[in-house]
């Protein structure tokens, strides 16, 4: 059974600093999503990564996927307060006829002035 681990689970950082959130998963997959969730709100798609070596960037966020290491990273550059939210990674399990999307526990990010 696929397991997805994120770390750190909580992250407090200063504005202007850089940091990386890690997403490890336990079985082979080449389909990984990153989502953002603000308190009390639904999920907003950030990135869809579909192959080994995939790298996508949007504003201050950049995501990458290494399927051999079973690792994805979400890198934050020069953080600003508006990035405060919970970030989730989710990995597709496609074995057999039962397709699932397995989620990490989330990283709660607080960006402080």
């Amino acid at each position: 059974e696929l397991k997805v681990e994120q770390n750190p689970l909580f992250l407090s950082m200063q504005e202007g600093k850089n940091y990386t959130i890690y997403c490890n998963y336990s079985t082979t997959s080449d389909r990984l999503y990153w989502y953002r969730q603000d308190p009390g709100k639904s999920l907003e798609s950030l990135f869809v990564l579909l192959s080994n070596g995939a790298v996508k960037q949007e504003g201050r966020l950049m995501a990458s996927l290494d399927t051999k290491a079973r690792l994805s990273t979400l890198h934050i550059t020069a953080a600003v307060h508006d990035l405060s939210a919970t970030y989730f990674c989710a990995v597709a399990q496609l074995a057999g006829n039962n397709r699932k999307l397995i989620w990490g526990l989330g990283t709660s990010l607080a960006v402080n002035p």
Partner: protein
Amino acid sequence: DAGVTQSPTHLIKTRGQHVTLRCSPISGHKSVSWYQQVLGQGPQFIFQYYEKEERGRGNFPDRFSARQFPNYSSELNVNALLLGDSALYLCASSPRAEFNYEQYFGPGTRLTVT
């Protein structure tokens, strides 16, 4: 274009009752997935439907069931409600079933079981 819509927004039920949650996908999207998100945790995959057929099922008891209609809208049914079923139920739509595409989430239905 309208996004994914879900109804109702909030719902309060008593233990042992039955509940039906509804989801309308983005126009043109044929896949609907359902998730349960307990406060403070990540979403848990419940079902995926594509072209009215079940394509994926998470580790939920048989009290949970779903179906998809010819217009691609979907219902999630939960029987014999337990206190632990209290959660935000999210629906997501995408063009196809293979998880190659971005999934667009609705605002969710917050279910409280007392």
